[in-house]
Structures are given as C-alpha cells and as structure tokens.
C-alpha cells in the first residue's frame, strides 16, 4: 500500500468534514428535487448568495462583529438561511411556480422544459448580478478557526470544518424533525410522494412546493454560509458545486431527504479517499465514476424508492 494508516485516517477525516458540507447542500437540493421533481440549475448560486449574506453580516457590514470571530461566522451562516429562504419564497411565488408544480400540464412528456430554462436563467442572473453587486475579487470570512485544528491521535481535524460539520448535523436533525413531526413537513413529504393524492387529501400542494423550494434553497444557503469561513469565493463559485450536489442526491436516492444527507457525506468521503489511490487530479472523476456506478447498479440510490409510477 502506497499510503499509511495515518494518511488514510487523515483523508477519511477530511472526507467526513467536507462531506458534512456537501450533505447539507444536498439536503437542500434533495428537498426541492424530491418534492417538486425540479432540476434546479441555480442551486449552486443560491449557495453563493448564502456565502455572501454570511460574509456581509459578519465581515462586510460587521453587523455581527460584536459576537466575535468565533460565534460571528456561525450565526452569520445561520442567518443566511432565512434571508435566502425569503428570496426563494418571492422567486417561487412570482416565477418558479409558473413553470412547476401541479398547474403545469404533464402532457406529451413535457412539463420539465420551461423549468430547466427558468433555473438556468436564474443561474445566469445570480452569477452575473453577483459580479455587479459584490465585485470580482475573491473574498471570505476570516476566522482563526480555519487554521486551527483539534488533534486526535496524529489526525488533525480542522476546527472550522469540524464546527461546520456539527452545525450541519444539527441542522439536518432539525430538518428531519420538521419533515416527520410537523404538519407542514408531512404535507411536504406527501406532496413529494404523490401530488395528486396529496391534493385529494386536502394538502395545499402549491404551498407545500413553495415551502419545499424556499426551504431547499435556504438550507443550501446555510451550507454556503458555513463554507464561507473555510474557503474564499467569488460570484461564479456555484457552478463548481452543482455536480457534487446532484451526485450526492442521486446517490442517496431521489426523494429521500435523509438519503441526500448520506449521499453528500459519501461523495465527500469518496472524493478525499480517492486521492489515496488515484492521481489527485482525478478526484472529481472518481466522484463521477461512483455516481455512474450507483446510477447503473442501484438507480434508486441508497434510500430511494424502487419504482416511480408508470
């Protein structure tokens, strides 16, 4: 073996923490995809928005400066969620709902067309609008945590990433509780499972979709906010993450929110562990290979349902 146990443990630790960030992003996408069956090309750009909101709250306008360099970024990341949730809500109400959901006819195998173009258009607007609003210089939240690490044995765990990981897990648990124990959450899952039946059951599917969309982009924005303190970014950063998010969601199983979590986590682990055996440059190719393997061998992913209604 050309790598040592320490190398392996280190890569695994890195993979888990990177995976935590991916997992949170994937959950956001998973909620949208699961509930609305919409391929949202702009998901990465909502994440970018989250990064900038968190940045402006902490460093930019210094609103949260009083919280100090440790708590500030975390709170900033959290607040990015509701902010982008609101943006998503408005977008859905006036734009996205016109091309998705139950109102759109499903004749001719169509329905998906306008959605794709709308989300692609949104992606373009966000990226370029971001350039105009935020400027081109890469920026990021400075926190002493990003350079410090906990030492477990000889394995170093980056503090900022570890904190993000914990926050992500907490958020995932909260989302899970929301989906399984609240009326809105259950309605959302019902609408995801079978929208026609849900309508007959009196569930306001359109509203469920709006909640799903806003929640989905909001959660991904929080993931972005957490990433904002571990890496620097510019308005076009979203593109880099789209494929990772989709790979994670499909790996976990379309329609399964918890699956999206595990999918994202696994993608992160695969990405980092692959560097032990493959040239580093093919790290992302490894993701695609795993992605394709899953899609062929077990298309329902880890937790998805086996069949969709014909």
């Amino acid at each position, binding site marked *: 073996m050309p790598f040592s146990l320490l190398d392996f443990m280190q890569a695994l630790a*890195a993979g888990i923490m990177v995976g935590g960030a991916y997992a949170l992003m994937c959950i956001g996408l998973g909620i949208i995809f699961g509930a609305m069956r919409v391929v949202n090309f702009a998901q990465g750009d909502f994440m970018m928005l989250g990064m900038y909101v968190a940045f402006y709250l902490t460093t930019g306008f210094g609103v949260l400066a009083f919280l100090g360099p440790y708590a500030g970024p975390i709170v900033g990341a959290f607040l990015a969620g509701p902010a982008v949730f609101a943006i998503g809500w408005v977008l859905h109400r006036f734009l996205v709902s016109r091309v998705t959901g139950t109102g759109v006819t499903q004749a001719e195998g169509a329905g998906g067309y306008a959605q794709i173009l709308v989300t692609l258009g949104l992606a373009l607007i966000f990226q370029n609008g971001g350039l105009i609003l935020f*400027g081109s210089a890469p*920026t990021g939240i*400075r926190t002493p945590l990003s350079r410090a690490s906990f030492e477990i044995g000889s394995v170093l765990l980056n503090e900022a990433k570890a904190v993000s990981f914990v926050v992500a897990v907490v958020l995932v648990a909260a989302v899970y509780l929301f989906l399984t124990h609240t009326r809105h959450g259950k309605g959302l899952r019902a609408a995801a499972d079978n929208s026609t039946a849900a309508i007959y059951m009196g569930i306001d599917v359109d509203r469920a979709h709006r909640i799903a969309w806003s929640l989905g982009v909001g959660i991904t924005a929080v993931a972005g906010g957490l990433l904002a303190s571990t890496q620097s970014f510019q308005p*076009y950063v979203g593109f880099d993450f789209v494929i990772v998010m989709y790979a994670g969601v499909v790996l976990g199983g379309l329609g399964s929110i918890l699956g999206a979590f595990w999918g994202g986590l696994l993608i992160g682990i695969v990405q980092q562990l692959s560097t032990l055996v493959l040239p580093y440059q093919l*790290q992302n190719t490894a993701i695609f290979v795993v992605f394709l393997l899953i899609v062929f061998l077990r298309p329902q992913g880890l937790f998805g349902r086996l069949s969709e209604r014909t």
Partner: protein
Amino acid sequence: MKTALVAALGTAISTVALGLVPALAQTPAQPAKDVKVALIAPLSGPWARQGQLMQMGADMAIDEINQKGGIKALGGAKMKLVVADAGDTTEKAKNAAERLLSQEPDLIGGTGAWLSSFTLAVTEVTERAQLPWLTLSYSDAITDRGFKYVFQTSPTADHMAREMIPTVIKLAESAGAKRPQTMGIVMDNTAANVSYVKPMHEGWLDQYGLKLVVDQVYTPPLSDATPLIQKVRSARPDFLLLLSSNVPDDKMLLEKLDEFGLGTRKLPTIGSGTHMGTPELLKVTDAEMLEGLLTGASDWGLKGQEDIIARFRQRTGEPWINQDSITAYGDMWILKEAVERVGAADRVKIGDELHKIDITEGPAAVAYPGPVKFDDKGRRVDAPLIIVQWQKGQAVSVFPTDRALAKAFWPAQ
C-alpha cells in the same frame, strides 16, 4: 518626480532624434488623429478581477501619455484605449478580438488576454490581422507558433523555475540556514504550472543536489487540501513549491499548511504567479500567516517606479501595484515608444519595430525589469524573474536586488 521628468525628457529628445531620421524621409507628421490601442482581458466571469487590474494599469498609462502631450511624432496625437471583455470562455475571448479588429480598423497594437488559453485564441486573430500584441502570459506555447506579431513580455514559466530554485537556495544559505536538500511540489495542472515544473521532472534538480520528496498535482478548484498537505507533512521537505493559480485555492492550501504546523516559518513556501501576492489574499487570510511567503512573477512594483506606484495607489485605492497592472501600464508605453520611433500609426511597421526595439529609458523601461527587447520568436530577451515576498502585510519585490524595493529574508526560523 525629478527622475521621471528627466527620464521623460530624455525619452522625448531621443525619440525625436531617432524619429527625425525616418521622418525626414517621410511625409510630414499626420494630423493629430487618435492612436488606438487595445486591451482584451476578462472583465466578467471568474477572472474579472485580473482584467480590472490590467485595465487600471493601462488607463493610467494612457492618461499619462496624453497629459504629457501624446505622440510627438504624430503631432501630439492622443492615445486611446479600446477595451473588450474576454469573458469566461475561449470563444468569447476570440469574439472580442474579432470584434475589436472589425470595429477598430486603425488599431496599432494591444495587450491581453491574461489567461493563456485566451491569449492563444486572441493572438490567432491578431496575428492574422498583423496586429502587434503584447502579453504577460507565461505559457511557452504562445511564442512557439512561429508568429511574427506576438510579443511575450514575461519570462517563460520554465525559465522562471530555472531562476527561482538557485535564488531560493542562495537565499537560504545567505541567511545562515542549512542548504536545502529536499523539495516538495504541490501544484495544479494549469498549463503555466505544468511548464514550470517540466525541467524539474527531467533531472534538472540534480545539479543543485535537490531531491523531490513529494510531488502532487491537483485539478483546480480544490475541494479540500487535507490529503495533499498530509503528504507534505509525511515527507517533510526543506522547502515547498506551491503552484496554484487562484486566490481561493491559495487560501485553502496556505491555511492547511498552517494548520498542520507547516506554515511558511517552518516550511518555506514558494509560489508562482501574481495571485499569491494580491491584496485579496491578505483580506482572506492574514499578514502573520503570509509573512515570508515568496512568489515569482514577471513584474511588480520595483525600484525606480516609486512615483508610478504612488500615482497608482492614489488613483485606484489599491494598496500596491502588482504584475497585471504594471505590465499593462508598461505595454502602453512600449507601444507608444514604438509609434514614436516608426512615426506612423502603421501596425505592420510597428510590429517590425518591436522586433528591433531596445528601450532603455523612460516609463516603459522603468515599468519593466531587464531589457525591453524582443528576440525573433517574440520573447523578451533576458526577462528576469521577479521574486516577491510578503513582509508585514505587504507584497514587495525582493529580487533582482538591483530593482527590488525590499530585502528578502529566509522565513524559516
């Protein structure tokens, strides 16, 4: 200030003197029509910042040239900068070049397009239009095509490597440290960096007694630097060559090194490229972490440019001037110089002139370290590597010592 005046005067006199000779044989100076030069650089998309930096430098040069009376040989004709956005794809860059050439048939030269693949595409257009083109791109493919109108002001990447390594070794020794015996490379696979390390993979390090103990290549953008730096940690080289190409990756790598106790004070780290010395890198990391970090570039704020630097800072608010801006500035002056010597706004003649030119005085010479002279391939003769070091939150030039603004120190303690 005085130096600049003298230099300008000297340039003007010598230009007139030199220009008189061909001018005598020509028709009298043209009526003062604007002389147009082009800047093609990314102004939108992920590299927008670099394009903006270039534009800042070029704009400043144009303003100065015009304030000083424009092109004397053309009766004080003003220089005008025409800018086109290279965008984020090779196609957009090429279109920008085509568009510019179509819409501005009287262009006499230009500079750009920052990213070497964009430059390759743009110069395919400019070459066919016989438009002289200056570029700072490091890739050697640019001047390996047998083109006549492309002029590369930077040393090529592998040339930079060949200068960097012995300089680093000397620096270590002169600081009283042990002579480095092992070296590590962590790099991305962009073309310039690949050419940079090519000699090192072909046994060139042996003559310095250097052994490569870790050699990793990644594809940008980086998702997590841990496995890469873990390898560095296991191998423990005496110094590290960190060849990335953008600020987000830089931040990730540097912070991970710091986290693993391999900050530049423990493990001297050398980068390549202007991105390692930008103000935005400071903003996303901090001065303490960057202290002592070295990087190589083709140009920087140098001795002799003090007033250029001061004017630049005042104009743009940037804390210091870096490669992208100073080279764009210098290119404008080079083109101006060429027009003066030719005495006409004729791109073909200017192209020929650039092959013959040897500017030793004036803002162009000041802007560039080393000779402003091009070989028949279009490469700047003896273009030296500029080494920049972070000192107290500023990225300052430290080599070559005759033009450096500060003195280098070996970061290891």
